[in-house]
């Protein structure tokens, strides 16, 4: 039975010293955990996946005899569900705290950056409330703490940053596992697995297990089919990758590995095509393919995900119309349309407010006010700036100035 275990579970650190790398994050966390007069009641461990955040919490609780009450991404984390688990755990002191064997409870919320959407409605608000009222340490872990939803949470937490685990440390760990599992591994093979993992210890151990399955000797040739881990491929890297790809297959592979937003990516490809193809015939062909990709994006919608491969293939084809003509260029990022929406947000909000005033007075919808009434109000105001219509529509002086100056609705 023990042999069926995943190695990441089998060799999960039991002591803090077994968690490799991030020694300062470890020290900060342990100091916080053992300090009875904590300045902040909660701590947010953040950093890339597989660097030891959850492992550290488990190892520390094991070493200092804390009992973990955990909620992770597999649980529904609505306000109700969090309160159901978190409130009793944090509001009452457990009886076993008085025993010498345990120090009490820790509430551990793993992957808090995944608390979002309809399923987890009200989750973040509930967590903040629990943190403020908690009598026990609250530990949270997240990959990306910069998302907008976590901003209020960051204010009530001590932030502890985790970095990627270094390659020599990963090799050391892999080597130890090989000794324990009686696998004779070439140093170069372990080196390649470690480099592939890009600082993710968990994925390195998983790769080692999958490759060495049924092999007493692990050679570097056995690691050749390992593909690079998909880590943090941003918009810039994805665009440069697909444009510099030598074949449609290469470009499609990069697209499959990337985790950029599909709509933003479509816009970015479209904006950057003129920089990529100086030849007008190539450019026209590429735009034709992008327009067809756009059609498939529309068909994918939110449910027909099986059509996504056509979208990717067409974009890959658009990026590799003439692979040999590639010359490095400065990528436009983010897409111009998104930038324009950002720049014109205040103007659009102002127009929406004016339309709302007109709609209220004329008993029409805001859209009707925008398309059918605003153009005429503009003409009236251009001819007579002090028209009685201003007071009737309850327009402000800056609304009047805006309407006179506006060119497009």
């Amino acid at each position, binding site marked *: 039975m023990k042999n069926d275990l995943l190695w990441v579970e089998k060799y999960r650190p039991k002591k803090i*010293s*077994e968690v*490799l*790398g*991030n*020694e*300062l*994050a470890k020290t*900060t966390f342990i100091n916080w955990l053992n300090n009875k007069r904590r300045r902040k009641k909660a701590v947010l461990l953040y950093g890339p996946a597989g660097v030891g955040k959850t492992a550290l919490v488990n190892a520390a609780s094991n070493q200092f005899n804390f009992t973990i009450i955990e909620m992770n991404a597999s649980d529904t984390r609505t306000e109700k569900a969090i309160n159901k688990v978190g409130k009793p755990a944090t509001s009452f002191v457990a009886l076993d705290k008085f025993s010498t064997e345990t120090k009490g409870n820790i509430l551990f919320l793993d992957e808090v950056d995944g608390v979002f959407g309809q399923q987890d409605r009200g989750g973040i608000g509930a967590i903040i409330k629990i943190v403020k009222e908690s009598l026990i340490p609250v530990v949270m872990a997240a990959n990306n703490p910069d998302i907008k939803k976590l901003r209020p949470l960051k204010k009530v937490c001590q*932030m*502890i*940053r985790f*970095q*990627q685990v*270094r*390659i*020599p*440390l990963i*090799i*050391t760990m892999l*080597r*130890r596992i090989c*000794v324990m599992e009686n696998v004779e591994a070439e*140093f170069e093979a372990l080196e390649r697995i470690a*480099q592939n993992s*890009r*600082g993710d210890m968990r994925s390195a151990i998983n790769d080692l297990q999958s490759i060495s399955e049924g092999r007493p000797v692990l050679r570097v040739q056995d690691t050749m089919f390992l593909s690079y881990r998909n880590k943090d491929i941003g918009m810039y890297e994805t665009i440069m990758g697909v444009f510099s790809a030598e074949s449609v297959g290469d470009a499609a592979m990069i697209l499959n590995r990337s985790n950029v937003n599909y709509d933003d990516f479509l816009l970015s490809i479209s904006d950057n095509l003129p920089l990529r193809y100086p030849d007008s015939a190539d450019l026209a062909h590429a735009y034709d393919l992008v327009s067809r990709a756009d059609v498939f994006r529309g068909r994918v919608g939110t449910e027909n995900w099986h059509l996504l491969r056509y979208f990717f293939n067409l974009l890959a084809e658009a990026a590799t119309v003439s692979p040999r003509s590639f010359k490095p260029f400065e990528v436009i990022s983010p897409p111009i349309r998104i930038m324009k929406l950002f720049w014109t947000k205040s103007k659009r909000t102002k127009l929406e407010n004016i339309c709302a005033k007109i709609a209220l007075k004329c008993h029409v919808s805001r859209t009707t006010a925008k398309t059918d009434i605003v153009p005429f109000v503009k003409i009236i105001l251009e001819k007579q700036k002090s028209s009685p219509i201003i007071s009737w529509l309850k327009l402000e002086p800056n609304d009047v100035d805006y309407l006179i100056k506006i060119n497009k609705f």
Partner: protein
Amino acid sequence: MVVLNKKAFILPRVEKEKFIRLMRLGLEYNRDKGSYSISHFDNIEKLIDTISSILNDEVLFLQNCLMCSKDFPCSDCKYADFCATKNLPFQCVCPQCLKEGKTHQQKIF
């Protein structure tokens, strides 16, 4: 290029504002010895930039080997180009210890 040891290093006298900035970015000052050490690494990149601007030179931190506790620079490591934390003062394994696989297991586990 200035090579510093994260446990204790000395900087020239700085203005009050710069000193406060250094403290906020994660340095600790030992009054008795007049030396600085790194207390937290959350803003390590900004901290290194600030120290570089004070010293008017590129700053490198020595790495400490987990196995033999020896200090060594990143330039000795062949993985430096793949390392996301190159030149930052974190735990590592020196090239010699990495070659001698046998001793490592005894040291950590």
